């Protein structure tokens, strides 16, 4: 096999990617019917002569199309990406002590990836912070630590010491008390302790009705309260970042992304995610119609309950006792997206927290829930 020909193919494909604004994996799929094919070739991988010939022919066609077309317009994902980057840079340029709240979920993964892009070649000039309720999936914690280490970023973790001392947990205290003490109160403690004046969060406006009106820069008073009736007007891309001492901003760079945008971007950019998002055989019990994974021995089994192995995955990640699994055969990202597109149940339904009615999310937010 002629290595010259392979390296020429790769470099031409990269050039095409630059010219047309398509990702290398998109082009790779067009040439080789495999999104990671070009990446493998770049790392010294091989292919048959016949495949190579057909790839070169397809590439030549694509190049001709590319030359004929006017400068490529930005796609909706390009625009969302640019907007998020603008927001992050604005915070870093204007705030004294920002932090990124990293929840280990898919939205956090996208947010972190965007931060890497926004400040490249610098590292993101702020730490990551994870509020650990101590009831997260074990796999989330492993993934979190590995990511921070790989990226060389500082990771702050905080658990509410009062809650731990009193043994607060979802089984003993119920989801409302657990969430308030181990999540909402813990977050406030951590923000106060480190005196952060801006905290990035991965919330999106399409998640829930009350969030549709949330600002990108959301002002919080010294008690971390959000006042929906007293939000700052937000025009163009000019953000008012001024706060007095003790006050802070929550900043949502993903405000305008939808769930589909998130998945599509993860796929396009090949962003690493915890394996919990993909279907696998996991031990679960069914309670009130929700599948709960038995992630550790703290899970009290009710009479007659026997954990059974089922093919399940998770649509959102949080505390394992409060996060419902869905039965699924989707073991790859495209399959997950496929299921998501064909599904008829919205994302937050897996969270036990918003099953109360009407304006409850608005009330929780007013109190400081993210």
């Amino acid at each position: 096999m002629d290595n010259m020909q392979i390296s020429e193919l790769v470099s031409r494909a990269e050039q095409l990617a630059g010219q047309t604004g398509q990702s290398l994996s998109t082009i790779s799929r067009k040439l080789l019917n495999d999104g990671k094919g070009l990446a493998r070739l770049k790392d010294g991988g091989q292919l048959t002569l016949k495949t190579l010939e057909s790839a070169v022919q397809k590439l030549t066609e694509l190049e001709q199309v590319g030359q004929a077309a006017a400068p490529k317009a930005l796609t909706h994902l390009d625009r969302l990406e640019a907007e998020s980057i603008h927001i992050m840079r604005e915070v870093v340029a204007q705030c004294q002590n920002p932090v990124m709240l990293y929840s280990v979920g898919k939205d956090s993964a996208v947010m972190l990836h965007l931060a890497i892009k926004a400040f490249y070649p610098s590292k993101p000039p702020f730490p990551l912070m994870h509020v650990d309720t101590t009831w997260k999936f074990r796999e989330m914690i492993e993934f979190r630590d590995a990511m921070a280490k790989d990226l060389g970023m500082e990771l702050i973790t905080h658990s509410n010491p009062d809650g731990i001392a009193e043994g607060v947990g979802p089984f003993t205290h119920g989801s409302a008390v657990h969430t308030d003490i181990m999540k909402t109160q813990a977050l406030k403690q951590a923000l106060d302790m480190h005196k952060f004046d801006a905290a990035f969060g991965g919330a999106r406006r399409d998640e829930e009705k009350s969030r549709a009106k949330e600002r990108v820069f959301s002002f919080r008073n010294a008690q971390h309260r959000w006042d929906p009736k007293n939000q700052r007007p937000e025009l163009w891309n000019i953000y008012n970042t001024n706060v007095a001492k003790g006050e802070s901003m929550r900043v949502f760079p993903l405000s305008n992304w939808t769930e589909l945008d998130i998945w599509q971007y993860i796929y396009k950019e090949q962003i690493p995610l915890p394996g919990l998002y993909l279907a696998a055989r996991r031990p679960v019990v069914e309670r009130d119609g929700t599948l709960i994974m038995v992630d550790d021995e703290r899970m009290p089994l009710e009479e007659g309950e026997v954990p059974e192995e089922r093919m399940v995955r998770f649509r959102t990640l949080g505390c394992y006792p409060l996060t419902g699994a869905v039965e699924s055969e989707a073991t790859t990202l495209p399959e997950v997206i496929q299921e998501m597109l064909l599904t008829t149940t919205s994302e937050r339904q897996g969270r036990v927290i918003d099953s109360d009615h009407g304006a409850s999310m608005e009330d929780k937010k007013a109190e400081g829930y993210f």
Partner: protein
Amino acid sequence: MAEQEYAYETDVRIAGDILGYLESHEQKSFLRFLTCGSVDDGKSTLIGRLLYDSKMIYEDQLASIESDSKKVGTQGEGLDLALLVDGLAAEREQGITIDVAYRFFSTEKRKFIVADTPGHEQYTRNMATGASTADVAIVLVDARHGVQVQTRRHSFIASLLGIRHVVLAVNKMDLLDFSQNRFNEIEEEYRSFAKDLGFSEITCIPMSALNGDNVTGRSDSSPWYKGQTLLEYLENVDVLSEKEGRPFRLPVQWVNRPNLDFRGFSGTVASGHVKPGEEIIVIPSGKRSRVKEIVTYDGNLDEAMPDQAITLVLEDEIDISRGDVICSTDGPAEQSDQFMTHILWMSEQEMFPGRQYLFKTGNKTVAGSITALKHTVNVNDLSEDAGKTLHLNEVGVCNISLIQPIAFDAYADNRKTGNFIIIDRLTNETVGVGMIDFSLRRADNVVWQDLEVGKAQRASQKHQKPAALWFTGLSGSGKSTIANLVEKKLYDMGRHTYILDGDNVRHGLNKDLGFTDADRVENIRRVSETAKLMLDAGLMVCVSFISPFRSERQIARSMMEDGEFIEVHVDTPLEVAEMRDVKGLYAKARAGEIKNFTGIDSPYEEPMNAEITINTVDMSAEQAAEKIVTWLAANGYLQEG
């Protein structure tokens, strides 16, 4: 129905070829639009319809609005699509939309962001917020009522914020049997009204949002209508080409400096294109260089486009910081510190000409003030009125003056570099927004003369440190008495001093001013400027004014150098001051003969961090003056400068 077939085909495609589906959706374009109209025009229903028909509603959300429809819906047993859209609890109860909500949906071709804004006059600011990022405005009218006052208002605000594409959605046509005559009448009236608003294109569509006619699918009820459905229009409208051909602008947001070998300028391209090798000019500094690299995480670019977030590396090491704008050398941005602008006021607290605010552009924050309100603009009929202040939701044509020049374009030429928000210095609230019409003069023609004899020279000639003792307190608190004693003591020590007070300022410099809040602000502004000139002359000046507003005193402080401004709070309780009533003013104010009297019908805001506080109940004027002079000595003001 056509939409259901479409949805079904999409599902088959997703199920059959997910990779192909993902790829085609990666290439979607993007459109932000605004819907305006009151609840009665069916705006929320229209958006609900777009979301519903484009399959952006999940089954559980549907179940929840089905049950809500029965409880609070307006459609009897039918589905009230408006409930999908009206979000905050307060709104759902009142049945109106009070804020801006952003909605998302997409089709095969485009992703859409909808800014859903309320229609009433008291929510003009909310509509302007939604309009600021939109390229298309859908103005709803109820076919039965035609063009209304609010239709004109919505169109004016859209035009003011720079929207060039308008859809006049003539809704509820089903109630008029899709009468072509009625539709033509409305279209004609609207076009004649809107001809001066600067829209490049107006499209009128007859529809029924409730039933979906001409929204996503063509209606059988209006065979006479040959134009596009609303969704076809939204999928195809071209908002990009008019932005092409503009000169390159990169407002520098952040200087990227990971190590000594790399220095890049990060920002989002506001307009135009740029390629490596091209010459650029930095505004306001005027320095030139060439583009060496366009850096992104995904590799260096051969060309950067509008709205891309990039990092530029230049050939030469020139001084550039946040707030500068990197421009192409043919057609660089202008620079100035004095502008004529359109301002929309967004705060409950009225605007005061003369008060200092912060002005924040896309990448720079500068202090300045609104120097003149030329006239207000009635948002309903565009008529001009005289006015002294702007209230919430009012639009005015104003001159502004900044303490530093900024790079800018006229808003009509560039929506990213011709705008600003106005921030209150004390509350940090966003109190207004503005769009630049033009520069009032070339700022670079006015350069401060660099006198060889300066403040330091003048002060040292007098062997003293310049300082302003700012006495604030209620009328009759004893400010002038104490200030006079302090001046006498300083004079005896050989200091060069002056007193500014109501008696010597109100009769001359400020005799044109009354006692309204706006005039009080201007009064203090002039006094502050005068005090500043006296400091420049090297004097120690005692300023004795009620100066009731904290923000005005804060501005005076910020105009002077650190340590020059010494706030003296002459703290006398209102009852005591009123009892003394040396000039008989309180009696007159109580009798209603004097209006806007501080402490009676106009507020006094006590200092929070005064350098010196004098309690005149426990202390005589002589003791107070002694305390102040002792403080000056202890803090180094009386050493020979």
